[in-house]
């Protein structure tokens, strides 16, 4: 019985840790894309995403 409970607890801890690591990685993926679209300082990136930056109220020029 003790073994069964501890294995359940171990599984839950592993699952929680795994979910957090994966959601953090997905969060980072989203932030990198948003930086590229909304903040990248290169002139080419600015000109390509110009109307999107204005429409989404990102600081522009």
């Amino acid at each position, binding site marked *: 019985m003790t073994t069964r409970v501890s294995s359940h607890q171990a599984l839950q801890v592993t699952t929680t840790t795994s*979910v957090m690591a*994966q959601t953090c990685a*997905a*969060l980072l993926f989203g932030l990198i894309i948003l930086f590229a679209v909304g903040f990248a300082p290169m002139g080419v990136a600015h000109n390509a995403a110009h109307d999107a930056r204005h429409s989404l*109220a990102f*600081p522009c020029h």
Partner: protein
Amino acid sequence: MIFSRIIYSSIVIGLVAGMLLTSLQIAGLKPIIVEAERFETLATEMPAGHENSGHSDHAHADDFWAPAQGLERNAYSFLANVLASTGFAAIMLALMNQFQLPRKANISWGQGSLWGLAGFATLFLAPAIGLPPEIPGAVSAPLEHRQLWWALAVLSVAIGLGIFAFAAVRIKTLGLLFLVIPYIVGSPQVDTPMFQHADPSVTQVLINLHRQFVIISTVVNLIFWLSLGLCCRFVFNRWFRGLALSADPDRS
């Protein structure tokens, strides 16, 4: 695997929401941007000495490639909108999985709308209170200062709303502190008026265009964020909630 599911789902949602945003943008916002650019071009063609003293010139971007007017410009706007929507969706789905998955319940229509409204409040309203949406030609503080304050406003309000929604009752007041931090710090401003043109009638036209832009962009962003929240709700209920149930040892 939650990570790959979030990435694939966010790309699909990004395509749908990006298409919606591009349509609204072309119909309501792009005509105002193009009209403001016309006056901006006139201003940069004025002889030296008539130029604005603030940080408003577009010249730094004129040295680089830019999409041609018409279809090409719309195509790049669509691409940028799809990428931005994909980024927003990835962040929202990551947070939904972090905070809603442990509850092992479907997200209701109301909760989905609240997620959308939270996105609107965090990524549009919070920065727009200090730095209203701008049209080309507006005089404003240096770009780096505005970007830094924008990031502070978004991060701080996101934490504040997160505390309100998910933290224990006894620390919910802490959320209020995070909501006001960006406005206590204060957004970067300039002393000169936002629009200053040699011809006062042009200045008035730009002020009117800006007023229209603020109202329409608020409506466009509200529709966009509500759609994004409801799309993420649909995807979460269909492809993610089951992961919590299948990983639950009590069910085995």
